[in-house]
């Protein structure tokens, strides 16, 4: 089988993976042990496989791994600092926004992107953002509350380094 290599920075670490040209990013991430990236549909509908690619939330089931060449990836495994949770993760726990937890990594990463872009989002903006992350457990009231609370917590922590302007995607 033909193989190729792809170099990425993932959760701050430089990695080089051997892949087949047709490998989908979701499959490669799970194969490489990033189990927090979930499979829910393989068709880009449910958002369980959400990761940040150059600070943009994408469905990793819709991207060839090769397209991530040279990109910066963030998966849920890279969101907390050791055992110290990110304010978004804290807010999700505090507000009961986690039930089965299968869609949670995707929701948290989408939130991460949103808050980098919009530190003070309206509820409507939060709903728009979460619309790409299907959840069958919560009914979304608590996740929406959690995102709004996380936004407030992030703002209270003072201005973080300005979010880097999103690079053009690899598609």
């Amino acid at each position, binding site marked *: 089988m033909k193989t190729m290599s792809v170099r990425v920075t993932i959760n701050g670490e430089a990695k080089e993976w051997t892949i087949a040209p047709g490998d989908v990013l979701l499959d490669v991430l*799970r194969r490489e*042990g*990033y*189990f*927090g*990236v*979930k*499979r*829910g*549909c*393989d*068709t880009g*509908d*449910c958002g*369980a496989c959400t990761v940040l690619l150059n600070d943009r939330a994408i469905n990793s089931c819709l991207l060839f791994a090769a397209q991530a060449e040279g990109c910066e990836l963030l*998966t*849920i*495994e890279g*969101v*907390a600092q050791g055992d110290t*949770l990110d304010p978004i*993760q804290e807010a*999700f*726990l*505090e*507000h*009961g926004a*986690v*039930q*089965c*937890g*299968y*869609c*949670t*990594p995707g929701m*948290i990463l989408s939130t991460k992107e949103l808050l980098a872009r919009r530190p003070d989002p309206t509820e409507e903006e*939060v*709903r*728009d*953002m*979460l*619309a*790409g*992350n*299907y*959840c*069958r*457990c*919560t*009914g*979304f*009231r*608590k*996740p*929406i509350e959690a995102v709004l609370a996380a936004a407030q917590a992030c703002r209270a922590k003072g201005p973080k380094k300005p979010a880097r302007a999103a690079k053009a995607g690899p598609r």
Partner: protein
Amino acid sequence: MSRDYNVVGKRLKKLDGFKLVTGRPAFTDDIVVPGLLYGKILPSPHAHARIKRIDTSKARALPGVHAVLTYKDVPRVPHTTAGQMWPEPSPYDTYLLDSKVRFVGDRVAAVAAETRALAEEALRRIEVEYEVLPPVLDMEHAMDSGAPVIHDEPDSTGIHDASHNVAAYILREIGDVEEGFREADFTFEREFRTQRVQHCAIEPHVTIAWLDSDNRLVIRSSTQVPFHTRRQVAMILQIPVQRLHVIKPRIGGGFGGKQEMLLEDICGALTLATGRPVKIEYTREEEFYMARSRHPQVLRVKIGVKRDGTIVANHMKVLATTGAYGSHSSTVQGNTGSKVLPLYRAPHMKFECHVVYTNTPVAGAFRGYGCPQGFFAQESLVDEIAQELRMDPIEFRKKNIIRAGDIDELSAQLGEGKQGLPRHIRSCGLPECLERGAAAIEWERKRKAPQDPRSHLRRGVGVACSMQGSGVAGIDWASALLKMNEDGSFNLQVGASDLGTGADTVLAQIAAETLGVTLDKLVVYSSDTDFTPFDVGAYASSTTIISGGAVKKAAEGVREQILRIASKMLELPPENLTCRDNEIVTKCECEKSVSMADMALHAMYKEKVQIMDHASHFNTDSPPPFCAQFAEVEVDTETGRIRVVHLVTAVDLGVAINPMQAEGQAEGAVAQALGYALSEEMVLDGSGRMVNPGFLDYKIFTAKDMPKLTTILVETEEPLGPYGAKSVAEVPINTPAPAIANAVFHAIGVRFRQLPIRPEAVLRALREKKTHEQEASAAAAGVRATGPRRAGRH
């Protein structure tokens, strides 16, 4: 309520929350298994066919393909896939693999190969010659004489009437409904239709099986029922239960879809055939047409009332289809009768139901378990009756609802697969649910609010109410094992299967409260057939009340042991001591105490005893939680779109062990129910193939679609529940659909009796209404004044 609890009733974070928000490997597929093969099932392309010839040689010849199984290679053991107590009340009409296929998606063969691509290639190389049989797709013609017989095999058992495709038949009566209708001043009869929908857990079904070093078959699976699965797989593969080890890790949602032995048997068979670990996971598309769904029903409801609004007779006739196999067929439909009709006191009640086979995707357990169908019909009709009698829908309900002190005799007749037990209502907060819900939606004001005549948008509010159960009376049981460690922490091992519901946390809260410790002292493990004691699993709203009852008993046993040892250490009688805040303290003012940690260390290394206990628990009754739901809708008369503006759920759940999680359960149920009401339907074409097996065409409610939600926990004290708890996870899924339908009537004056209520149907109905009104006004030009509208006797 005036309660003095430290852990119970608190909005505590989930114990497993940290690993879930950090994405730690916790789910079935989050492990690396060396040598893992990929398993795949060849689905039938036909709704009804016999396999005349099947040739697997080309698939077997493919390098990297390790096994190809057909019906010729596996034992033929009739069974049910329903994850129920033994002996299961569902018919034994299913086979690991069979020479006949009965729906599009039925198993034809299974392969195990080195990669997914190879497995898919192997499937393509299997040559099958089918004798295509005429299918039965319409449940209303399944019993016709001359209809094709779906289960013509001689070895299936427990089918009510296989020759007429009747999986199950139910007839129960209290009093005499015909007499009741004679006593009634008015009778109302209507027909309702509900559709086939799916659970849509975001984690599709997945199973990994391997042989351990003792040659035992280990099955790691996304299941709600590990113990039933162990028993069923042992029977199907004809190996001893002793040789099986079923592990339930974290589950990515189930909702009843995983109360089913669905992949474990075939995955185990492939593992035995290859000697290698095998994984089978459904794609989303396979999940849609190969997994389970909610039973579609046609319901005819006839209710007789007195002039003052007293219901005297209630007759429900149901036709339901279970699809190709009878999983949960009698019990889901039994619930449609036993949980729905007794909500209203009536001396005469009758429930009659045929559950028929069709060559369609298989139905099964789904949150609500037969109640959403029944309550859609009953609550819609009750609303219509109230309107005809010119009574407020809330007042009409309050007049008729079951109340504390009542005994529901219909439940005694509709037990799970056998004679049941009468249901004594010991706690009932339904009147309070109706009152607080009405206040939250501003019922009085909004019922009277005039429509804006210039606007194409019409607003309306509607109400509906329901009840459920808390475990299956006399059948469901659970056990728990609790042991203390030398640092004052505890291992709580339960067979109860947290599938994302928060059960682990709730059970730990019950243990911690009983032990007088903080929640962080509990380490919960669920569930594993080798390491946790038996539990029926997560279904029938049983976990909090039944598994929680077992946990409470085990914790009481442990507490007794703790006090005994502490009494030696403190030189005080145990009855003078109590456990509080991770310490054993004196009840009086003598101020002697020892920490749990010191006591535990002493017990382990000085007394040389393991402090531990286990307990089993079951109830002979199933206390119902109650729920009233209110919907405010806005109907666009130009597009037919129904927008739900606000959905209020007021639920009597007994005592909320964890209010935050209880609210989450209610709100999740509402989200599923909104899809049931307005958007979700598994659509089959004329050949029985599902045409929308993906989230693009099967629309579930997203964050963008959800209305404003208000959740009110109405607490009552249930004597049979641990710390007064009942259940909460199912009941709020029952009535958003009728509440919305009733609100839509309030808005535009049209009743919808078929789900989902689509914009097309709304527009069509509005056009018809307009035509009728024009005809009526034309006719009225001659004859004027017909007097007040009267309820008809028909």
